C-alpha cells in the first residue's frame, strides 16, 4: 500500500517537477529548438571548427563535471583552478551549464571562453534549453554535438559529445552517432559524454531517454566497446559496468550542492580510468 501511495505521488510529480523559477513551463510541452535543428546547426559549426588536442605523452588527464547551473560560479571557479593546476588537457561540462537565461549564459561565457591552459568541451542539458536558451548556447559556445580527438604518443582517443537536452538524440544525431562509430577501430579508447543519465538507480521524477532509445544505445555502446559513458542530470553519483562499458553519472557542481565533486579521467595506452574528487 505504501508503494501505491508513493507511486501516486510520483504520478502527480510527472506534471511538473516543482514550482521552480528556473523551470520553463512552456518548454515542458513544446521546444523552440528541436533536437534535429540543434544537430543541424551543430554540424554547420563543426565544419568550421575541429576539436583536437595533441599531448606529447603516453597519458593525459581530463576533468569532467556537470550541472553547474550558473547563476553561482564559486564551485566552477574552484574546478577551473584545479584544472589549470593539475595539467588537465580538457575541462568538460556534461550539460545544465546554466539556467537557460541570457544573463547566466553571458556569465558562463566570460568564464569558459577565457584563455586557459586546457580545452573546454561542453554540451547542452535540459536547463540550457529553457527560455529559448539554445540561441545563447550556440552564440557563445557553438556546437552541442561533436567529436573531440585526443592524440597522444602512439594512439588517439575519441570523445563523443551528444545533445540529449530534450530527452532524445533525435533521428539525425542517432544516425550521425552510428556513422561515427563505424570508425571505432581508429581509436584506442572511445568515451561518450551526454547530459541525460541512461541508467537509473533510483525511483526518480526526472526524465531519461525512452526505452526504445535505451535499447538502441546500450546495444550500440556494447557492440562498439565504448570505454565509458559520462552523464549528469540526476545530481547524484552512480557507476555501473555493463559489458565492457562503464556508465558514470556525475555529482552536480552547482554551488549549493553539499556533495559537489568532479571526475578526474586519466586516458592512455592502458585504457581510461577515473576517480571522483570532492570539492
Amino acid at each position, binding site marked *: 500500500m505504501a*508503494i*501505491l501511495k508513493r*507511486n*501516486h505521488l*510520483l*504520478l502527480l510529480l*510527472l*506534471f*511538473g*517537477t516543482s514550482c521552480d523559477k528556473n523551470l*520553463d513551463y512552456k*518548454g*515542458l*510541452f*513544446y*521546444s523552440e529548438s*528541436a*533536437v534535429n535543428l540543434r544537430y543541424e546547426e551543430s554540424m554547420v559549426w563543426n565544419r568550421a571548427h575541429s576539436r583536437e588536442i595533441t599531448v606529447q605523452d603516453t597519458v593525459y588527464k581530463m576533468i569532467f563535471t556537470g550541472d553547474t547551473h550558473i547563476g553561482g560560479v564559486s564551485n566552477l571557479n574552484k574546478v577551473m583552478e584545479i584544472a589549470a593546476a593539475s595539467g588537465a588537457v580538457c575541462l568538460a561540462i556534461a550539460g545544465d551549464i546554466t539556467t537557460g537565461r541570457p544573463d547566466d549564459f553571458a556569465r558562463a561565457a566570460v568564464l569558459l571562453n577565457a584563455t586557459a591552459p586546457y580545452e573546454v568541451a561542453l554540451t547542452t542539458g*535540459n536547463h540550457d*534549453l*529553457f527560455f529559448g536558451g539554445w540561441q545563447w548556447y550556440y552564440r557563445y559556445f557553438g556546437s552541442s554535438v561533436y567529436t573531440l580527438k585526443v592524440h597522444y604518443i602512439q594512439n588517439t582517443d575519441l570523445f563523443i559529445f551528444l545533445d540529449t*537536452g*530534450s*530527452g*532524445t*538524440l*533525435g*533521428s539525425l544525431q*542517432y*544516425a550521425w552517432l552510428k556513422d561515427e562509430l563505424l570508425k571505432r577501430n581508429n581509436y584506442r579508447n572511445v568515451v561518450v559524454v551526454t547530459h*541525460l543519465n541512461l*541508467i*537509473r*538507480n533510483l*525511483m*526518480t*521524477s*526526472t*526524465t*531519461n*531517454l*525512452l*526505452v*526504445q*532509445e*535505451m*535499447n*538502441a*544505445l*546500450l*546495444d*550500440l555502446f*556494447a*557492440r562498439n*566497446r565504448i570505454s565509458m559513458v559520462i552523464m549528469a542530470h540526476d545530481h547524484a553519483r552512480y557507476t*555501473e*559496468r*555493463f*559489458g*565492457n562499458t562503464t556508465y558514470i553519472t556525475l555529482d552536480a557542481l552547482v554551488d549549493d550542492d553539499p556533495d559537489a565533486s568532479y571526475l578526474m579521467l586519466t586516458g592512455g595506452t592502458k585504457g581510461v580510468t577515473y576517480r571522483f574528487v570532492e570539492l
Partner: protein
Amino acid sequence: MKHILLYLLIVFLFPPGSIGQIAFSDYYTFGSNAVSEGLYFQDNILARYAYGKFSLGAGVQLTAGYSDQQLLSGLLLEGTTTLFADRFPVVVSLLFLRRPYSRLLSENNFSLTVQHRWKHLELILGNNIRIWRLSRNEMRQLGMSGATDLGITEYRNLVYRLTWYLKPIGSVWNLSLSLTDFDDFLIQRGTNPMLAFGFEKVLQPDLELFSQLWYQGAGMFNLQADYFGFYFKTGIRWQF
C-alpha cells in the same frame, strides 16, 4: 507458419477439454521513431484463456524494418485474477515481457499491476522491474569474452494508464484517450508518458475491430519537450 505456431501455442496453453473462454487478438503496427531509421512494421498476436476469476495470456511480437532490431521483438506471459468482484472489482495482473533487441541485447520486464474500471474510465497502476542482459555467447562472438558484468537491473518503475472512454465501456463502438507509459509489448519509464487515441467497434458479438494512434514525446512534462515518434495499430479481437 504463423497460424501453425499460434495453434500449437493454444493447444499447449489451453488443452482440449478445459472449460472457459478463449480470446485472441491479432493486430498490425506501423510507426517511426528517432531510432527506428525509417518506417517499421510489426505483427502482434495475443491469446488469452479465462476461467472464472483467473486468466492466462501469452503473446508474440514480430518486427521488420526497425534499425538493428531483430525479427522476434517481444514475448509476453501474463496471469490475472479478479478480486473483490462483488463490491469493487480489481484485476490484479502479473506480467513477464521479454524484448530481445538484437542477438546481443535483450530487455526483460516483470510487472505487477492493478486495474479498475468505472463507466467511462479505466485506471491501471503498478510497478515494473526491468533487467537488460547482454548475451555471453554473442559477446564471445564479438571478441569480448572477458566481460563479466552482463546485466543491469533498473530500480522499480511506475506503470500507469488512465483511459477515458466517450461512451460507457462495453458499448458497440467507442472512442478513447489514454495517458500511459505502457503498451502490450512496451513498458516505458514512468516519466515518459505516451498518448493514445483509440477507436473500437463490435462487428459481431464475438468479434471486435480496433485501431489506435500512439504519440511518443521525449522530455514531455519534465525536460524540454521534443518529438520522439508515433505508431498506428489496427487489428481484431475475437473470442469463442
